[in-house]
């Protein structure tokens, strides 16, 4: 009798688990579609971001995608790190620092390639430091990266000369025009290099996640670190490498931001860590790691961009923080309902 009852119960559970896994698979696309639909029927401000007040006009889409470049560049690597069960709260500051360094080099007469390479190497260095603190000195990831958040931000502020708010052209020193070629000049379908690089990054990282040992080991470490280590995986090395990768892409994102604005703003990356967390959580990556999808993080990133930029046109800018906070809370709740259920069982 009891067995029969348990059996039916189990079947019901299985069925609800199935429904849940289907919802989990597709909900994020539905959410994005709904948001796009909502903004398309809304009357948006003329001018500014949106061409003739239409959300779906080609120009509007191009504008949206251009502003999405930094988060698209960064969130893939961030996802990989979260899959391994780790977090990096310093990405925003790493971005700012890279933006400042890049702008400083360009302003001081370096040509594109050296500035580009030095900035990316710097990014790897920042990631290296985070990885060292977390894996070798075994400082909790949250604390370690919160403190490097402050460190990187401080360095960025120090590079900017007193009295200026950013590294930018002045009477004495002119910022070369070409600084904004990377993130502004249209090269294909009205979109700049930076965007196509971001697309390439997403594609490459998706392949890395699915087809290389790095992606697999990240999942194994996040899923069951002990099992991974017993299988001979050097978790310390892998996690360290993931931090370096995140640092690298934070630098690439910072560089795109500097190029887009033609200046190096030491605060330009502020809040990026939260955007990344929101995107990753919306994309269904578990808090504790083990699984996740870069493709879905990208959808999550687009949702944030749509919400923040779309909302900016219907309501005043000072609503933006609340809007973003609400999206984060929604992401947490959805993630709890759809992903974390296994924990209880």
């Amino acid at each position, binding site marked *: 009798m009891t067995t029969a009852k348990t059996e039916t119960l189990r079947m019901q559970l299985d069925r609800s688990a199935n429904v849940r896994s289907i919802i989990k698979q597709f909900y994020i696309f539905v959410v994005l579609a709904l948001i796009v639909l909502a903004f398309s029927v809304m009357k948006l401000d003329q001018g500014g971001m949106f061409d003739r007040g239409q959300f779906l006009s080609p120009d509007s889409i191009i504008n949206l995608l251009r502003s999405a470049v930094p988060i698209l560049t960064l969130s893939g690597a961030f996802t990989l790190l979260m899959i391994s069960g780790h977090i990096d709260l310093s990405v925003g500051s790493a971005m700012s620092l890279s933006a400042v360094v890049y702008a400083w080099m360009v302003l001081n007469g370096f040509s594109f390639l050296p500035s580009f390479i030095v900035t990316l190497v710097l990014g790897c260095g920042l990631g290296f430091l985070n990885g060292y603190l977390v894996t070798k000195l075994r400082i909790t990831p949250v604390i370690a990266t919160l403190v490097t958040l402050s460190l990187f931000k401080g360095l960025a502020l120090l590079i900017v000369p007193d009295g200026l708010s950013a590294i930018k052209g002045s009477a004495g020193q002119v910022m070369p025009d070409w600084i904004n070629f990377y993130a502004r000049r249209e090269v294909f379908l009205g979109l700049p290099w930076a965007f196509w690089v971001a697309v390439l990054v997403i594609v490459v990282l998706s392949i890395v996640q699915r087809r290389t*040992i790095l992606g697999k080991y990240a999942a194994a470490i996040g*899923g069951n670190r002990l099992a*991974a280590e*017993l299988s*001979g*995986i050097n978790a310390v090395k892998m996690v360290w490498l993931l931090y370096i990768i995140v640092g690298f892409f934070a630098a690439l994102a910072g560089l795109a931001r500097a190029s887009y604005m033609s200046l190096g703003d030491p605060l330009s990356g502020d809040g990026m860590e939260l955007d990344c967390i929101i995107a990753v959580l919306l994309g269904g990556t578990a808090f504790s790691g083990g699984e996740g999808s870069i493709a879905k993080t990208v959808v999550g990133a687009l949702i944030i961009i749509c919400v923040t930029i779309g909302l900016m046109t219907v309501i005043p800018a000072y609503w933006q923080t609340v809007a973003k906070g609400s999206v984060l809370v929604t992401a947490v709740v959805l993630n709890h309902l759809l992903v974390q259920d296994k924990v209880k069982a």
Partner: protein
Amino acid sequence: MKPTENVLEIGDLVKDFPGVRAVNNVSFDIKRNTIHCLVGENGAGKSTLIKILTGAYARTSGQILLNGEEYNPHSTRDAKQKGISTLFQELNVVDQLTVEENLTLGMEDTTLGFLRHTDKINRMVSVMNNIESSIKPKQLVSSLSVAKKQIVEIAKAVAAESNIIIMDEPTAAISESEIARLFTIIKSLRDNNVTVIYISHRLDEIFELGDYVTVMRDGKHIETKPVSEIKDRSELIKMMIGKTVFEQYTPREQDCPDTILEVKNLSNHRLRNISFDIHAGEIAGFYGLVGAGKTELARAIYGVDEYEGEILFKGEKLKPSPDKAIAAGIALVPEERRSQGLFTILTIRGNVPVMNMRKISRNGFINDAKERNVTLEYVDKLKIATSSIEKEAGKLSGGNQQKVVLSKCLFADADLLMLDEPTRGIDVGAKSEIYSLIRKLSREGKTIIIFSSELPEVMNICDSIYLLYDGNLRATLRNNCDCDSEKILHIVTGGE
């Protein structure tokens, strides 16, 4: 290299822990391509021995020869590379990866970091499918049953070309039909040049499966011989218990007529329809082997785990939550001392009064003098050996740690005290102190339930004995009337 006859030769192996010699001069050989069973009661030293073999512990002295060569692994990984894989009781598979990914984890063929689909994968998958054809390589491991996850682990060990696979209680969490399947697999492993070291408390399994059996007791090696030379279970059981004279159990003078705890049709993930009554003032013992459901039963009564059914304490239905249980007058000494019972980074003084803060405080403020005195009282009463009550609890020896946990629960002033494996991993002296304490408490009118996998413990202090097997309550005995240890072991190892 000419294969030696013995794949593993253990000589004069010793492992000391503070205050305990867990493995005491153990010597025996394991023949190549056999299924070698290792039996013994809890605390006999089996797990310590296994942990030395897998590299988790370093031996104190002695030597181990693997294929005739000195073997001294410094980690589980190292042991694996040398050809010894282990299936631990906790599964070591990554749920979020597919079966195929788990099989190859750590052994991938790659080009520039890209995974290559080589013959190796096919070979591993076919190894697995030879063992169990119903598992699909692309399936997520989280969708598999425990038994099938185990098979994935076995396949992984086989595919890694291990020549020794150690299995620690592999049947503890799987069903009868799955066990039969597992046995077929284990036998076929032997036929394919793998030596299996098999640890189990279920004696029938030894007879069904084993070629050789080694019996251990109190850290010592008792006997190694072919299973075929052993007459029956009772001979094996005799070797396991030895000539241990149980401390004489003194039957209770007066009866305990009042029921204090009623459990009705209790079921959950591990327990099946368990019902019993406990009388006020008695010492009840639940005996069963690892995985029989003792801890789960204790946790259900205490309200830690969810359950179906009803539990009445002093006639009232218990609400399932530890704080409610304590308020009602129940206290639990949990199974895992360090992770569930003790606050290791706090002092003894910080540990003892935690379950009854009201008694050492007024209006929410702690009375330091009372706190100290209470702690001192328990240090005296339980003879906790320490230089100071301000010593960190985690730095005490196992027996003294357990006494601190006991003090904590005693101080809760509970009417019903549940003790889950109260003497696990502690030395003989501390053990007997704890037994006499339990008897004393019972004389003072407390009701006590012991959950134990050590038979002498149960036989020596319990008035009534409840036998658990595989989540079922198999028998209830009055001590000293119809108890003999062989019959009990017969029941709890699955005999009818």
